[in-house]
């Protein structure tokens, strides 16, 4: 398949289209709205299911195979908040606190971007490494912690924020799902596959419709915040994505695996990070980080980023 064909394949997937539908609904001022409980239920389901599937795969993978990618991912988790912070200070000329807040988002990871990349890679015909969800869990936490350290050098209730991140629901569901999957293995998977695996992409489609509505309601803020933020929110993912693909290549991933690791590295959090930042850095401006993460970087990765990381991975790996 050539690049245009791949882009088309990505753009016409039900998930990307559902995201667009959600945005359109909000822009048309439709009264469509997901109940809070439905959004929460979907996110609980998705996070646990990702973890669980990863855990089952992990139970079939020798530890030695996972070790190197895990270390490399931790490395990414330490590097990404630093580059995000520096770029926010220099290019956006933000203060320490706002830069730290942005860095926490671009230092962590978006589970939905991860999933979209996984789906894309599978649809293209790759078979990404099964233990990738483990790496999502590894990438989620350290970035936030490093970023908060950067912002609060010398002061504040960092412990509270640290605990907030570690016991936050996205980490508990991902890591808990991983453990349950690893412990119950294939035997457990067999029983719950028709719930946690088969309907997964449909549930994700609905979730993305809701995300589209949320992202669209951030567009207004975007205009206030300015064009530089849009650049930040697209160039940084490209940079991180390229590094992620390269790291994936180095640790011996398949083309599919490198694509997904690239997308993970390029993604920015919008569940764990906002909650942690709001508690630890209340002085930071939420419009800034929510607009960048949700209204710029997420759609960018979903629509253009993923095919680009795939092209990169193919170029390096093929």
């Amino acid at each position, binding site marked *: 398949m050539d690049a245009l064909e791949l882009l088309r394949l990505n753009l016409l997937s039900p998930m990307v289209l559902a995201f667009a539908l959600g945005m359109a609904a909000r822009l048309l001022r439709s009264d469509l*709205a997901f*109940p*809070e409980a439905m*959004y929460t239920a979907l996110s609980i389901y998705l996070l646990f299911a990702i973890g669980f599937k990863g855990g089952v795969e992990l139970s079939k993978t020798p530890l030695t195979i996972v070790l190197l990618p895990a270390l490399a991912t931790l490395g990414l988790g330490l590097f990404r908040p630093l580059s995000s912070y520096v770029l926010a200070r220099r290019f956006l000329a933000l203060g320490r606190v706002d830069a730290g807040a942005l860095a926490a988002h671009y230092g962590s990871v978006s589970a939905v971007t991860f999933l979209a990349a996984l789906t894309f890679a599978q649809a293209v015909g790759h078979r990404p490494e099964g233990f990738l969800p483990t790496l999502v869990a590894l990438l989620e936490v350290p970035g936030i912690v490093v970023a908060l350290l950067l912002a609060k050098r010398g002061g504040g209730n960092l412990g509270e924020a640290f605990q907030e991140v570690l016991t936050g629901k996205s980490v508990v569901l991902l890591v808990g799902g991983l453990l349950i999957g690893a412990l119950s293995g294939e035997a457990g998977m067999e029983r719950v596959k028709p719930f946690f695996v088969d309907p997964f992409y449909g549930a994700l489609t609905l979730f993305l419709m809701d995300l589209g*509505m*949320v992202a669209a*309601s951030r567009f207004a803020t975007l205009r206030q915040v300015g064009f530089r933020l849009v650049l930040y929110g697209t160039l940084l993912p490209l940079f991180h994505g390229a590094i992620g693909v390269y790291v994936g290549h180095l640790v011996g991933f398949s083309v599919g695996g490198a694509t997904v690791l690239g997308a993970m590295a390029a993604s920015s959090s*919008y569940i764990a990070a*906002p*909650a942690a930042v*709001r*508690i630890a850095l*209340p*002085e930071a401006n*939420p419009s800034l980080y*929510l607009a960048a993460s*949700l209204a710029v970087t997420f759609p960018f990765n979903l629509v253009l980023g993923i095919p680009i990381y795939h092209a990169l991975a193919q170029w390096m790996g093929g």
Partner: protein
Amino acid sequence: MDLVPLKLVTIVAESILEKKLVEEIKRLGAKGYTIVPARGEGSRGMRSLDWEGQNIRLETIVPEEVALRILARLQEAYFPHYAVIAYVENVWVVRGEKYI
């Protein structure tokens, strides 16, 4: 019937503050509270059902001096950075001595 005049303090705040606010008001002397989920709009824009989480509307019935302590603490520690409003009114409470 014994109706005791007390103060009803109502706080509308970002839901992320729930745990902290509950700890604060208890520490300052509140014996109980009631919370309902809410949404709203104010100087910091719309706080909808979306994403950043919604608001909570917290009510606590307290004696006047506790009310003032709570409001002072809010003004000092929460108003600068968070979306919060707070107000107080007069109510008459059945078995009000429980809340003093």
